[in-house]
């Protein structure tokens, strides 16, 4: 994932944008135009025009939307790789969801980006995959499958002192609200933050605890607040 400036290639990288949403694709193209080493050779919206453009040009990297009007991004990627095995594909997703990441990884995509990513990240990813590397944001390893064994649950999930140290005062406040128990929206309302921020905070707490469920966090927190 680490990208080094010294390894920047001399040649412009040819990028094909495949996106069902034309305005968004235009935006992508416009953003990429700020990067001289990258050349967006075109925008296509569906499978048919994609193969049409491939007749005349051979892009190094394809920025491929996960969902297209006539096919799915995964299927198109498979076809592209069949036609041009050297072609690199970076898939674009809208939501950071485990299924997408695992599917893209499984189907052999070189990279994965959230559509909201910055130009910097996008160029990094393009350079990385063009060089033969991979760029996954978010990483599939973040979703290592966790099977919950009902018979093997231990609380607290970490020693009380550790848990206490891990959390900032704001996060502790959120934990207290969780024990009431309040939902994300209720927490957001009581703290005067947006629901997104509240959910984000909870996700951070879960990450810090090293767990994936709210119940485990709550049951562990009872030991802290005892």
């Amino acid at each position: 994932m680490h990208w080094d400036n010294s390894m920047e290639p001399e040649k412009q990288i040819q990028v094909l944008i495949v996106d069902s949403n034309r305005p968004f694709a235009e935006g992508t193209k416009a953003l990429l135009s700020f990067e001289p080493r990258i050349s967006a050779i075109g925008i296509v919206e569906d499978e048919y025009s994609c193969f049409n453009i491939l007749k005349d040009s051979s892009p190094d990297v394809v920025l491929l939307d996960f969902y297209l009007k006539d096919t799915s991004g995964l299927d198109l990627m498979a076809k592209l790789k069949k036609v041009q095995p050297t072609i690199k594909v970076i898939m674009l997703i809208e939501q950071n969801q485990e299924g997408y990441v695992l599917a893209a990884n499984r189907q052999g995509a070189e990279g994965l980006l959230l559509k909201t990513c910055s130009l910097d990240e996008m160029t990094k990813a393009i350079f990385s995959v063009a060089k033969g590397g991979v760029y996954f944001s978010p990483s599939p390893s973040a979703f290592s499958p966790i099977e919950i064994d009902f018979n093997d649950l231990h609380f607290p999930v970490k020693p009380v002192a550790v848990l206490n140290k891990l959390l900032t005062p704001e996060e502790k406040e959120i934990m207290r609200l969780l024990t009431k128990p309040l939902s994300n929206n209720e927490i957001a309302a009581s703290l005067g933050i947006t629901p997104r921020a509240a959910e984000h905070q909870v996700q951070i707490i879960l990450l810090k605890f090293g767990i994936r469920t709210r119940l485990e966090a709550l049951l562990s927190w009872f030991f802290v607040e005892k």
Partner: protein
Amino acid sequence: MLEKLNKPCIYYITSIVFIVLGLGYFFACLTQPYIGLLLKNTNDKWIVVTSDPYGEGYRSGIRVGDEILKINGEDAINNRFVKKWGEAERASTIEFRKQGEFKSQTVIITPQPIPLSLFRELPSLILGFVFWFVGFITWYKRSFLEQARILFWMNWLIGLAFVLSHASSRCLFLSRELEYISISLAPIFLILFLSIFPVVNNNRFNKFAFIIACITFLTTLALITLTSLNIITVASFTKKASLVNVIIGIITMLFNLGLLIRQPKHHPGRNEAGIFLLGMGIGFFPFALLSAVPIIFNFDQFLYSQVSSLFISAVPISLYYIIVNKYLPDSRRLFLSIIINISAAIILSTVAFVVIYFLKILPGYIFEVYFVLVVFTLLFTYCFYFIRKVIIRLLEKRSYFQSERSFEQKVASINRNLASPLAEEQRLEEIIKNLNIDGIFIILENEKLGCIKKAAGRFKDNPKEREELENFFRHKQKLDLEAKMLPDDCPAGIYVPFISSDATCGVFFGRHLSRIKFEQSELPFFTLLAGQLEYQIIMSLVIGELTKEIDLLNKSSRRSQRRKMELQGVINGLFQKIERERKRLSENICSGPLQWSMDLSRWLKYLKTISPVDEKTQKVIAYLQERAEDLNYELNTLANKVGPPILTHLGLVSALQWLCQKVMTEELALISVQIQGLSSQTRFAEEVEITAYRFFEEGIINSVRHSRSHFQTVFLTMNENKLELTVSDSGRGFDPNQLENWLITGSHFGLAEIKERIESLGGELQVISGINRGTTLKAFIPISK
């Protein structure tokens, strides 16, 4: 004591004893003359106090007040029987002095010729044997009944008293002692009998009477013993003592009968008492008439009036009849028929008597003749009745009355035919043809059906006659409900009315084609037939109505069936439409606003990198960035809610995993997901995927929110041709029968909706739950590969 006696051999032995005693004393009586003089010792003189007109003494001219001087040649005072009983029995010569005379006379007692004495002695013997025999038969037939056993002993004693009466009056060996014992013992059994017959009746009176009777009996027994041993001579007192017991018995009997007669009408005891009274009436009336009336009216006693005592056997026979038969005829009806017969006999005999008197066949008014006429008329009536019955029976056997029988058969066959649902008009025609009558007219009035008239034969084409009969029906229907034969000027011969709960009906039968008048005895058959006809007409009308209603119901059922199918189609269509709308909305959000907001977000990020390091600008950009992120978040949340894009993009397994993960981070739940037989790449028809997803969504959310359980287990299994989906918890559960109600009331619509959707795919939803027994939702959805 009675239990010990209750052995069959005792009954047989006592019966044999009875027969031996009865016959023995009877034959002994034939050889001994009956003197019939009762003496009393006044101033050492033996004066005759009673002289029985049947006795040899009376016949020899000895009257009341005469003095008996010598018996068998020795002084009367020395005679054993005179000493003991005060009677001049066993005498062959009697010397006596008439009242007011000084000269004594001597008479030689000669026994009467045997046929004559046989004729006199026989009735009481027969009566005694009847008593014993009836008691024996009752016991034999109903030995398990206590009343039958007591009746046996009572009858045995009474019978013995009757059998011994003549021997006792002749002072034969021990006969008088035995007679007194049996006379005074019988009432005790009578009281015992009455206290359990016809109903158990242990009242104080009976108990008291029983004690008194026992004391009297013991006294009598003691007196008899003393008299027999010649220790004392209180013969008349002994006799009185035994008679006292009889009186006690009679009073108890009358008291008990009085109690029984006062019982309510339906009480079986009352009827039984009535029949017993009837038996007593038959038994004692002739006896009283022949013996008591002459005494009261100073007529000469009828010679050999003892014959009338044979009637007394009606008393034990009536008791036998009551005990042996469980079901008895109505005693009041028996009384009535007896009274009717006797009245008829009295009237007839009066007429005959007057005729004979005026024809001067009779020299004058002689009561005896009249009495004999009454008796003979009565006898004649009964004999006539029995002979008539016998002749009818014989003729019936010879099938002489074939025509009458065939009439009954006709009615029976018509009744059978009526049960078959023939056309009514045809049926009526058939009836008149079979019965050989000229018409039938039926009027039936019913609140619902109105007035219905059916006519056949002569009434069919004769409105005038119909009108006449209808007027008769209207006039009569409320007054009289008896079937009757109509007068000759009426067009119909028989009229049978009926009133049932909801209909009034009159059936008119025409007349015999042969112009033979209807007989009274045919009326019941016509009533039966009319009842069947009325019933048939009502039934066919009701069936008609029912058929119409069934037809209507059928139509409406078909309509509602069709409507149900339509509604099912509409519901399925609606669900599909809603789902399509959701998907479209989700797609619209994802392809429109979400893309723009995401675009906005990354441009803001770019702006941040290129804008001057001016704090104010940076702050504004940071703020805008936050809002853009919020916008992204909200749009994504909305899209996931209405139709998660991941389901469309990646299929059921990925969507389910995401759903469970989301629920676990947002709610307090631990969900175990187990997937078998399929992978995350397995895809199904869109309908199947969305329905299965909605099932899981509904099941998991419901469980998390309502079950109060924090542990959910989710199974997704693919079999050959179906998906099996399960969501279960161990929470508080609910009553699965409520599911149907939820559909009707529209509450908890989610699960009801899922059920409809699964069923519309040909699947099945099972809800296994119970209060505090957790919930398991199980769905099967067929898949086509």
